[in-house]
């Protein structure tokens, strides 16, 4: 600014040369006769502006700005609430998923156990049955063996008897033959 003031001071004599014939040689700023009017109208206009700002502009602007701040903070609060709600729901869902999978595992394992039990029982029963059948059939085989042995003996004795009777007069008794055979 000092720069401009210097230029101004430098140019001032120049301009005064142009202003030849002007009624007052000084600056218009120094003309005291205009002061009352300037002061009066300054007071009038500035008071009007002050009242306008004080009563009209500032209350409205401040409420608008406050409202906006409130709205923003409310929205942020609401968003935070929704966010926490959503994370709660997610937690709930996870819990449910976990418990459900636990439950299903239990069901699977318990059903496996019952199945195994049933199978074991079935096996045992069948084994018992099979063993019984085996012993029975062994018995039968034994009986048939004995029977067939006796039949073979008898048949052998009979055969021997018939052969012997052809060559010898006295036919040996059965007991004798069986004694000889053994």
């Amino acid at each position, binding site marked *: 600014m000092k720069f401009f003031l210097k230029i*101004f001071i430098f140019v001032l004599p120049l*301009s005064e040369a142009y202003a030849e014939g*002007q009624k007052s040689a000084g600056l*218009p*700023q120094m003309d005291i006769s205009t002061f009352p009017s300037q*002061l*009066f*109208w300054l007071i009038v206009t500035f008071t009007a502006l002050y009242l306008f700002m004080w009563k009209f502009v500032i209350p409205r602007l401040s409420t608008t700005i406050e409202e*906006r701040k409130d709205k923003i903070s409310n929205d942020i609060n609401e968003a935070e609430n929704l966010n926490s709600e959503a994370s709660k729901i997610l937690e709930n869902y996870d819990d449910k998923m976990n418990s459900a999978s636990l439950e299903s595992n239990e069901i699977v394992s318990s059903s496996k156990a019952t199945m195994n039990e049933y199978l074991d029982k079935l096996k045992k029963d069948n084994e018992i049955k099979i063993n019984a059948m085996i012993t029975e059939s062994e018995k039968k085989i034994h009986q048939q063996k004995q029977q067939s042995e006796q039949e073979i003996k008898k048949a052998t004795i009979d055969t021997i008897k018939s052969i012997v009777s052809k060559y010898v007069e006295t036919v040996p008794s059965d007991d004798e033959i069986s004694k000889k055979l053994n």
Partner: protein
Amino acid sequence: MAADNPIDPIHQFEISKIAEMQIAGIDISFTNSSLFMVFAIAATMTLFILGLSKRSIIPNRMQMLSELSYNFIANMLRDQVGDQGRAYFPFIFSLFMFIFFCNFIGLIPYTFTVTSHLIVTFAFAGLIFLAVTLIGFMKNGLGYLRIFYPSGIPIFLAPLIVPIEIISYLSKPISLSVRLCANMLAGHSILKIFAGFIVMLGFLGFAPLIFLVVLYALETLIAALQAYIFTILTCIYLNDALHPDH
């Protein structure tokens, strides 16, 4: 008359009567100065009436502009003075808008710059000085006199420091008013002088024209800056009155 001379840089500051008026023998005629004061407050009012006509959460351009100026001054006052400054906000806000629009309207060719007259800026500065002094004594009682003797200064320096502080305190309204007035006066005179050079030099006038364009941009900056400086200094003086210990 100066009106005969197209390149008289002082002519733009002359006050001419539009309507004669007198109260108790004192001349309070409606002049071109008064007219541009009315223009300045009309511009301010237009800005805020348009800005506040459709108040909404998402502002339109004019609302944005009025809220921007509101926040600018509110933040300035809060930073400089703190919460006690709230009561003076309407005055500070009006002061800024008035000086701002006076300075800017004055930049338009063939207009009058209200703030280029020392009596106007001195009226503001004197009012601020008186108000600040009154506030200082009302809030702090005689303790306000401490501003003339800053804490931490040895007592033997008091005879030196206290007169300096008193002089600097009393010169505040003068420096405040002269700063704004001289800036406007000098800037507008230079613009006018260089505009005159363009006419005088004829074809060679393009050189001062380029300079004028640059200067005009600078003057636009100064118009805003001086309004800001005037306002922030008012805030600083107010802060001194409310907290004299600093």
